[in-house]
Each structure stands twice: as C-alpha cells, then as structure tokens.
C-alpha cells in the first residue's frame, strides 16, 4: 500500500501495512508499566481525522488500525503477541488454536477455531463466518481498500483481464471455485485454505482483520463499516463520523476464550475531527490526562513538547517502519538519464527539508536503501548515493552542475527538459501546508544547480488515488512504504518490480529486464539466507540506477496524557501495545 508520508504525519495518509521490526528500535521515554495496571476508567484517543479509513475489517489496511481494532474489536486467526520488545513481532494463536498448520509445501493452510469464541450477540463464531469474511475481499467493487493477497494467492482461476473468476459473496459468479478453494470441516470449526503457490507467510496474513470472520446474516454491505460486529472485548456503541467512536465492554466476550486480551478500561472513546492546533494545545497543557494523541504533534509543537523535561514520561521517539522516498519518472521524455537523476540527488538540500519536518532527531535520517534496517537480515548498506564522497546533506550544487554538464552531451533530451526554461521539470505534489513549504526549499536547491522546476499542486484528498495517473505526467513523486512483514519480498518487487506500487516507470528502461528476472528468482528462493543476499544485490542495483532519487528512514513520535499507563511500543505497528493501556487511578 502506498504512502504519502512526506505530506504529513497524520495517520490517514500512513495507510501502509505493518512491518516486522527485528532490529533494535530506539525507544525513548517509554518504559514498561511500573505502577500496577488497573481496570476501569475511560480511555480517550483524539485525532484530527474525521473518520477512520475503514472500520469494516475487509477494508482495514492501516497498520495503526489493525493494531488498535485488532486489540479491542476484532479477533483474527493469528495475532502478533501483545508484548514489548522483539517478542511482539512473533505470532500467536488468537481465534484459532494454533498459528496455522501448513501442508503441501505451504500450499494448504488449516486453522481450527478455539472453543467458546463468540460474536457480540452471543452466537458462536463458525468456520462459515470465517469463510464468508474471507470471501468479501473478492468483492472489489464494494471493498477496495483492503489487502488483495487473498485474490492473488487462493487457488481460483484468473480471467483474461487479470481479475479473479470469483467476484465475492454478493454475486453468483465463481462461487463454486471459491467453495473449492476454502473449505469447512463438518463440525464447522476447522477451515482450510488452498493456495495456488507456496506461501510460507500465510500465517502472517492471517493476522489481518480482512481474513477474520464476518457473520453473513449481519453483513450490510457498504453500511457494515459503520457498525461492524465485534468479537473482541469491546463493541461499538456509537460511531459518528467527525464526532466520536465509542467502544463499550462486550459482555459476550469471555476471558476464558481469550487469554491474551486484558481489557483494562471500561470505555474507549475516540474523539474525531479535533482541530490540529487544539489537539496540540491539549497535549502540551495535559488537558486530557487520560487521552492519547493519535496523530502526533505538528513538527514545531513536537519540538517544543520534546524539549519539555516534565513530559519525559509522556512521549516516545521511535524508528517507524517507513521509508519515504522521491521517485523519479524514468520513462522517455522525463528523467530517462541517470546523470540527470544523479544531479537531482546531489543538488537536493536534504538538510533543510529534514529540518523543516522536525530535524534529524524527529523526522528521520537519510537512507541508503529502499529496505529499512528494521527489516533485519534483508537490509545491507549500499555503496554510492549518500556514501558518495560528493554527497553533502545540504546539497552540492557544484557537483550537480558537473553531472548536468555531462548530461548535456550524454542525454541531450533529458538535459533539455531539466534546464530549458520553456520546459522544465514538473513535480506533482499533494496540496498540503508542509508540502508547500518544502516545495520552496526543493525549488530553491534545484534552481541553484541549474534546473528548471515547477511544483504542481494537486488536491490532497484525491492525490493518492490519482498517483497512477500522475506518475506518467510528473517527473517526481514523493511517497513512502513499509513492509507488510519481515521480508523484502513485500518491498522490492512492489516498489521497483511488477508489484502494486511501482511509480518509477522503469519498465521500458534497458536495466529493467535483468532486474525483474533476478526479482522473480529471489521470490522463489526457499533458502531465506540466500534470499536475503539476493535482496541486498537487488537493492544495490536499483539504488545505482537512482530509480529512487533519495530515501529517508523515518522516525515517529507519540505523545499522551499524564494518566495513561502502560504505553509500550508494539514493534510490528510502531504503535502502543493497546492491550496494556490503562488509566492510572
């Protein structure tokens, strides 16, 4: 899922999936609960966003929401352990009795439901519910925001236009094929998934709410989003967009069937649509002591907050799972010239841009790879780019000029586009306040090196949806990505290869064919260590091409009120372990 993280730190735009962080993440401020956790009280969250991207499990793909609602509302077959440190990155059984039984070279996965698991109306959760829930992801005309692994993995024929023969539970087409791919045992407690190819990571996917159960009789289609049925310790009492989401205890939920969830607060209220400045002021003056800021502060307020020693126990500054990057349009007529792309890289004033968004301390550091160090074995430092002796973090316009000078003869077309005042480079950006500011810096730095550049602002709300269209018109795109789980297979092919979100337009470049061949080889490699080495090579290859002009390894901050207890980082989501949260009495 693509991200537009550079634009803002609000969670709406961070719609990527989760990442498995195995490296040591920096955690400041947060410490495991020292006081005894206590039941009771109301836990508040507040956010500037007016509504959740999705409450319907089928559409839920935002890391934060998966963590939040996966803890409170929806149980899934498997779940990440709700524990601090690297233990949190491990899977555990949730609705199922175990994390899944693979067979047939991981082409078949089998799960059995835990006894006593129920819906909020008291009825038992059955295999049919799981099967129905899983099927909804195929109804792409109704649900368009969730992950689509189910469609590409399940053993269902593909039609000529690339879509699945099965069109979801609301249509009759392809139902037989689906019934064959997903089967239930006679006692309706065991579900079997039959896949097209080996997917050793299927158990990770089974932690996504989109794979969870949906009761067919309660399904209201599009409207289900407003009041999905809960299986966790809380249920929805009220969901009013732009107002609030109120969760109350689900009295049908039994601790006996769910040893993991603690459910400390009596109520959970998420206040929606709070003005950003109000929200920041609330944080800084601790006006909602039992509340948590869901968005993070605006950069400047963030700095003020983090400079305040009295807030030391109400904040953390961690490495988040995201890599943000600047994509070049590598197609002909745009930046189809390595020298020009390189010149842009060296001309960029990264220092000012990072300062603008919170500095190296809070925004992030320059990256040297598309894969973030969090990903563990798949990350290795690359050569060149930020390690090049000519690289200056504040920009090196002189070197950029020499590169451009070489480009003049090497690739006159791209040079002309980049320097001719009548043409010039175009940079499509979402129309947000921070972008407007950074555009000033980007334009100034590139002009210094002799580029002609114009920022084209596009409506922020429809920016992401139009990326497919923009990618062939603009010369740059800013975006971001986080791995879905701890394998660069959810990064490199998606970003540079034939995955979902390759905005580089590199398909027609001569360097692409050898690259994609290697990618496919790596994907089918069963030896994990060998695979990691192959990913190292491939990231070096792509970075050498400057398909991405620059990458930043981002950081993330969270702040909360003085009465919040149990704030600890949950590694897979870079969020709180919601399960541990309680109100200090």
């Amino acid at each position, binding site marked *: 899922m693509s991200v537009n993280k550079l634009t803002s730190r609000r969670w709406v735009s961070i719609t990527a999936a989760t990442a498995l962080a195995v490296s040591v993440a920096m955690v400041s401020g947060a410490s495991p609960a020292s006081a005894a956790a206590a039941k009771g009280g109301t836990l508040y969250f507040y956010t500037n966003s007016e509504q959740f991207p999705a409450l319907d499990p089928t559409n839920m793909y935002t890391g934060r929401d998966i963590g939040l609602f996966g803890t409170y509302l929806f149980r899934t077959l498997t779940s990440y352990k709700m524990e601090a440190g690297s233990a949190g990155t491990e899977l555990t059984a949730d609705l199922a009795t175990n994390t899944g039984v693979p067979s047939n070279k991981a082409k078949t996965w089998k799960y059995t439901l835990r006894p006593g698991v129920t819906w909020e109306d008291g009825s038992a959760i059955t295999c049919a519910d799981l099967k129905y829930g899983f099927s909804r992801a195929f109804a792409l005309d109704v649900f368009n925001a969730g992950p689509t692994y189910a469609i590409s993995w399940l053993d269902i024929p593909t039609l000529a236009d690339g879509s699945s023969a099965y069109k979801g539970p609301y249509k009759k087409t392809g139902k037989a094929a689906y019934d064959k791919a997903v089967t239930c045992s006679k006692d309706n407690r065991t579900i079997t998934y039959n896949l097209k190819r080996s997917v050793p990571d299927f158990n990770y996917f089974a932690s996504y709410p989109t794979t969870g159960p949906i009761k067919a009789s309660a399904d209201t289609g599009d409207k289900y989003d407003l009041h999905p049925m809960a299986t966790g310790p809380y249920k929805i009492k009220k969901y009013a967009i732009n107002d609030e989401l109120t969760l109350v205890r689900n009295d049908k939920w039994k601790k006996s069937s769910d040893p993991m969830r603690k459910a400390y607060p009596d109520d959970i209220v998420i206040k929606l649509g709070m003005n950003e400045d109000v929200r920041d002021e609330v944080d800084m003056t601790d006006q909602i002591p039992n509340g948590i800021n869901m968005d993070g502060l605006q950069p*400047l*307020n963030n700095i003020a907050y983090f400079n305040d020693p009295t807030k030391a126990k109400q904040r953390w500054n961690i490495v988040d799972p995201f890599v943000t990057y600047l994509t070049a349009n590598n197609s002909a007529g745009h930046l189809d010239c390595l020298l020009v792309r390189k010149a842009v890289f060296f001309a960029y004033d990264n220092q000012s841009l990072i300062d603008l968004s919170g500095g190296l*301390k809070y925004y992030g550091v320059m990256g040297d790879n598309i894969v973030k160090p969090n990903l563990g074995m798949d990350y290795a430092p690359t050569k060149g780019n930020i390690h090049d002796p000519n690289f200056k973090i504040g920009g090196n316009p002189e070197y950029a000029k020499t590169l451009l000078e070489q480009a003049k003869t090497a690739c006159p077309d791209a040079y002309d586009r980049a320097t001719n005042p009548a043409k010039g480079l175009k940079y499509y950006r979402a129309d*947000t*306040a921070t972008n407007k500011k*950074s555009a*000033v810096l980007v334009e*100034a730095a590139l002009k210094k090196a002799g580029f002609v550049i114009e920022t084209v602002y596009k409506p922020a709300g429809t920016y992401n949806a139009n990326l497919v269209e923009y990618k062939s018109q603009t010369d740059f795109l800013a975006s971001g990505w986080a791995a879905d789980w701890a394998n660069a297979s959810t990064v490199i092919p998606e970003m540079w290869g034939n995955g979902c979100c390759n905005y580089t337009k590199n398909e027609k470049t001569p360097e692409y064919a050898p690259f994609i061949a290697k990618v496919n080889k790596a994907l089918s490699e069963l030896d994990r260590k060998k695979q990691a080495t192959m990913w190292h090579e491939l990231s070096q290859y792509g970075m050498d091409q400057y398909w991405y002009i620059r990458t930043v390894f981002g950081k993330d901050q969270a702040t909360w009120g003085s009465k919040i207890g149990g704030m600890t980082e949950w590694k897979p989501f870079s969020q709180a372990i919601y399960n541990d949260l309680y109100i200090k009495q």
Partner: protein
Amino acid sequence: MPKSVKDAALIEPAKIEGEEVTLRTPKQIALARFKRNKVGPYSLYVSLFFILAAFFAPVITHLWGLSSTDIYTDGLDEFALPTGGFGGISWQHPFGLEPGAGRDVFSMLLYGSRISFTVALVTSVASIGIGMIVGIAGGFFRGRIDALIGRYSDFLFAFPSFFMIIALSYPMVDRVEKTGIARGNNARLLVLIIFFVFFGWPGFARLIRAQSMSLRERDFIMAAQAQGASNWRIITKEMLPNLWPTAIVFLSLSLPGYLSAEAVFSFLGVGIQPPASTFGLVLSDAVKYWKVDPSYLFIPSAMLIIIVLALNLLGDAVRDALDTKSE
C-alpha cells in the same frame, strides 16, 4: 419691541440653512470635506504607502540587499527555527526570517502584498466595470433587458460561489494552463480573479441599477431627454458623472474585502501557491508557528489589520465626503 436694531458685523461667507451658496464644484466640495475629515487623509497616506511599497517591492528589497526567493538558512537552527529573538529580527531582516524555509519575511510580505493588492484591485475594478455597464443597462433601459439581467444575477446569487471556487479552481487552472495564456501562479491568479469577478459583479450591478433607476427620474435627465439627447449621451454625460462616487466608495470598501477573501482561499489551499507568499499563505503558515515564533504571526497580522483598517476608513471618509446628504 426695539425700534432699531444695530447691525453687528458682516454676514460671514459660506452657507446658510445648509444650502450651498458657494461657487465651488462638487469635486472641490468633496475634496474639502475629505481634507476636513480627521481620519481620511491619514488613511489615504497609509493605504498609498502600502500600495506603493507593494508596487516597488523589487526596488525596496534590492535596496535592502534582500531577495524574496533567497533562503537564509544560516539564520535557522537545527529545527529550522530562526535564531535570535523575535523571529530573527535584525537590521538585515527587519521582520525576521520565515521559520522552516528561511526566507526573509520583509520581502515576502512586500511581494505578497503585491499579489494580494493585484487580486483586490483588478477584481474590484473589473467588478465595477461590469457592474456599471450591466447596472446602467438594467436601470436605464428597464424592460426585458432589466428582467434578463435580474434573473441572471438572481441565479448567480443563488449559486454557492464559495464551494464553486474551491471545487473548480484546480480544473480551471488546468484549463488556463492548457490554453497557454498563463502558467503556474499567474494562471491561478487569473482564475481567482475570474471567479471573484464572476460572482462579484452582480452585487455592484444591483446597486448601480437602483441608482440609475432613480437618476432616470431626475429632472436633469428628463431635461436632457427633452432636448433630444441620445441615450448614449445621456448615459455618458449625465448618468456616469453621478454614478462614479458610488463606484469609488464601492472600490475602497471592496478592496479590503477581496484582500481578506484572498487570504481565506489561500488558507483553504485554493488560489496562489508558494513560493509566492500572499497574506493568506503567510498567515496560514504562521498559525502553525504561533507558539515557537509568535512574531512571525504578529507582524503579518498587524500589517493586514493596518491595511484593511486604512482602506476601510478611507472608504468611509470618501463616502462621507461624497455624501451630499449628511451634515
């Protein structure tokens, strides 16, 4: 009753019973009244000062050794905040530096007010021009023309202009750019002005229409008609001179209105975009920094208040001076 009353002194010149007996022209009277107003001349000087400053922005900034596009990152700290007190105010940067990008606020505001004034002036003048023509046409010819204009302006009034501007500005800018008339901010400026004028003129046209209807009934127009003057002559020689005071008052009062409107649309992300820096852009940016850099919010706010206040008071003074009824 006394038999004889001794005369005290000569009767002072000027007016009796409020009736003008001097031989001054209306223009002179208005000018004298304007000068007599305590606030009028000062608000004129202040307005002129800012308008001239905006007009000569390149000269002033050059003389000061500044540029509105240069980035003075030396003056910013690791979080891109201006170093030194009061938003980095110094002799070199009299209004300090812009936090984040490090531009000089003084030159930003000079150049910014240039754009703001352009929008306000062009829009006002164009609205007045169209409103004048349409208003006179409606008020003077009446009948079908008037009905048609009335219905059309009703339609425009009913139109939710605010949303239309927000929703349509992106595609409109696209279209303007495609025609090649203007690019980038010039295109956005053009679109903003077109929208403002499009939705702005009916208000003024109504005003003029009402006035020309009553003017039409006045004796001197009747007299001109009786003498067989052509409609064109009546409109240009008899009506227009009586309508321009309204236009001037409208101008001085709509200027600050459009200044504020530009600010609001910039805040909402419609209209002019950085690296340009209109009042709206600077203010909406400054709100984010109020806690760490209050002077960055205070200076443009104060400047906008002074300009709007001066223009409003100027408008009041002009109206008072041209108003033949009061006093």
